[in-house]
C-alpha cells in the first residue's frame, strides 16, 4: 500500500506538472464530493498498480523458469522440439490447482472490494448535505453558453446571469440542471463529477467549495460546433464577499448618465441587440442570449472564448463568427459611431 501511495503521488505530481494548473483537475479536490471521487480514484489506482506489477512480475518469472535446456542452443538452429510429454505429477498438480484457485478468489475479492468502494463513493456523493442554507441555482445549457439563474423564495430576488457561477465557500450549492436545445454536461472537476443536462428533463447536483478560488468547468457532452468553447467558471468567495456580489447582482442596471452612453442605450434598444439580450431595468428583455445586466462584472465573454476587454467586446459585437464560428450571435453591421456609443453604454453595466 505504501508503494502504491508513492506511485500515486508520483503520477499525480507528473500530471499536475503537465497541465500546470490546478483549477481544472479532479486531482486537486476542493469539495467533499471531489474528495470522495479523488479517494475512489486513489484506491482504484493503487490496487490496479499493485495487481499490474504482480501480474507482470509473475509472467516474467514464469517465462524464465524451466527454460535452461534451450540456453545451450543460442546462435544455432533449434533442434526439433521433443513431443509433448504429459507426465502428471499428482502432488505438483494439486499444488498448482490450489494456487490457481487462490488467484481466482483473490481476483473476485479485489473486484468486489473495488465495487464496494465505488458504490460507497457514489452513495456519499449523491446524498445531499445535511447542512442548512443551501444556495439554489438553476443552470440551463444552451448552444454554447450557460444560463445561470439564482432562485430565491422571494421572486423579486430571482435573477439571471451567465457563464460564471458565484458561490460562497463552506455552504452547499444545489444546482438544477436543464438544457434548452441539445444534451450538454455540467462538469467542474475540482468540485464534483459530471452530470448530463437533458432537454425537458431536470437533473440535480450539489457541491460545496471549501476553498476560495476560480474553478473552471467545461461542457462534457459533445453539443455542436462550439462545444470546446463552452466554458464555465465557478467563483468561490468567502460568504461575506458572496453576499456583497449577490446584492449587487440583484439590482437592475443603472441608467446611463453621459450623453454618449444614452445614445449607446438607444442603439442597444433599437438595433439587433435587444432582440436576444436582457438588460435589467430597461425594455430589453430577450431570452435568447445571455443576460447582460451586469456583463462588465464577468471575466470572460462568449462562455470563456475571449477575455472581457473593450477591444474584445467590440470585435465580438461586430464579427462573432470569427471568434466562435457557428455561434448564435450574428454579425452586426454597426456604424463606428453607433459601436462606440454602444461600448460606452455597455461599460456602465457593472
Amino acid at each position: 500500500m505504501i508503494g502504491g501511495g508513492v506511485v500515486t503521488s508520483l503520477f499525480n505530481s507528473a500530471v499536475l506538472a503537465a497541465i500546470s494548473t490546478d483549477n481544472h483537475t479532479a486531482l486537486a479536490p476542493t469539495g467533499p464530493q471531489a474528495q470522495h471521487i479523488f479517494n475512489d480514484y486513489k484506491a482504484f489506482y493503487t490496487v490496479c498498480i499493485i495487481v499490474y506489477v504482480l501480474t507482470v512480475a509473475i509472467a516474467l518469472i514464469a517465462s524464465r523458469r524451466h527454460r535452461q535446456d534451450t540456453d545451450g542452443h543460442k546462435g544455432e538452429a533449434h533442434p526439433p522440439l521433443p513431443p509433448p510429454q504429459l507426465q502428471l505429477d499428482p502432488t505438483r498438480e494439486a499444488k498448482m490447482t490450489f494456487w490457481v484457485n487462490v488467484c481466482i478468489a483473490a481476483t473476485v475479492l479485489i473486484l468486489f472490494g473495488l465495487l464496494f468502494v465505488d458504490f460507497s463513493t457514489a452513495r456519499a456523493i449523491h446524498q445531499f448535505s445535511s447542512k442548512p442554507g443551501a444556495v439554489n441555482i438553476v443552470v440551463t445549457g444552451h448552444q454554447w453558453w450557460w444560463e445561470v439563474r439564482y432562485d430565491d423564495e422571494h421572486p423579486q430576488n430571482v435573477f439571471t446571469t451567465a457563464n460564471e457561477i458565484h458561490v460562497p465557500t463552506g455552504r452547499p450549492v444545489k444546482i438544477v440542471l436543464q438544457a434548452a436545445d441539445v444534451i450538454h454536461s455540467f462538469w467542474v472537476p475540482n468540485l464534483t463529477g459530471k452530470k448530463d443536462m437533458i432537454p425537458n428533463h431536470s437533473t440535480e447536483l450539489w457541491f460545496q467549495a471549501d476553498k476560495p478560488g476560480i474553478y473552471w468547468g467545461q461542457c462534457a457532452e459533445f453539443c455542436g460546433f462550439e462545444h470546446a468553447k463552452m466554458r464555465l467558471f465557478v467563483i468561490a468567495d468567502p460568504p461575506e464577499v458572496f453576499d456583497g456580489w449577490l446584492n449587487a447582482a440583484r439590482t437592475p442596471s443603472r441608467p446611463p448618465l453621459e450623453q454618449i452612453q444614452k445614445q449607446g442605450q438607444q442603439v442597444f434598444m433599437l438595433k439587433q441587440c435587444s432582440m436576444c439580450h436582457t438588460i435589467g431595468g430597461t425594455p430589453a428583455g430577450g431570452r435568447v442570449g445571455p443576460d447582460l445586466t451586469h456583463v462588465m462584472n464577468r471575466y470572460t465573454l462568449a462562455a470563456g472564448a475571449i477575455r472581457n476587454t473593450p477591444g474584445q467586446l467590440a470585435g465580438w459585437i461586430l464579427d462573432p463568427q470569427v471568434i466562435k464560428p457557428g455561434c448564435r450571435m450574428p454579425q452586426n453591421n454597426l456604424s463606428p459611431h453607433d459601436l462606440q456609443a454602444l461600448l460606452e453604454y455597455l461599460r456602465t453595466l457593472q
Partner: protein
Amino acid sequence: MKRLNRFPLAALAIAMPLAVWSCKREERSFRVQPPAADTTDKVIVSKLRAGQMMATTTQRAATEPSGGPIAPPPPGIAPASKPSAGLVHNGYEENAYAVGEGNRLYLAYNCVGCHFHGGGGIGPPLMDDTWIYGSNPEQIFATIVEGRPNGMPSFRGKIVDYQVWQIVAYVRSMSGMLSKDVAPGRDDHMAGAPPPNSMRYQPPQWSTVGTIR
C-alpha cells in the same frame, strides 16, 4: 480483365462529382462576406411606408447609413445569378443548414408568437396557399423588414439581413415551396403539421384581404 476494371472507375467518376454536388446543400458558411450586404431598391413591392414618406427610394438609401429598404441575399452559398420566379434568387433556399437556421430564428425572434407553427392565429397562416403580400422571396423579405398594416411589425434594423433571408427560406419551406432535399425532415417543435419535406406543393395564389377565410 481490363475491361472489367473500367466499370468501377467510371462509376467513381460519376459518383464523385455527384457527391460533391450534393454536399453543397449541407454546406455551412457562418460568416457572410461582406458583412454589410449592399442595398438596392429592386425588390420594392410598394411605395407605401410606415411613418414619414420618403420622396424616392434613392433618397432614402442616402439618408440611412445602415442601408436602404432591402438588401439582396448574401452571395455566401449559392450565386445569385439565376433569378427564378422573382427578381431575387435566395441562395439560402438551396441550403439545408440555412433553412434549419431560419427555423431556429423563426422561434427565437418570436414569429411563432403570432403565426404559430405555420397554422396562423394572431397572424395569417404561413403553410397554406394564400399570400396577402406575395410569396416571392423578396416579397416575404419586404414583409418582414418593412412590416405590413394590421399587425405585422417592421423588423428593420432588428434582424440582420442574412438572418432575414434565412427566415424567408424557412417560411417558404412551410408551404412546400423548397425542394425536398433541402427542407427539414423533422420540425423542432410539437408535431401537428407534416414536416416541410413532405409538404404538398401549393402554388401561390394571389388574393385580397377580403377573401381570407
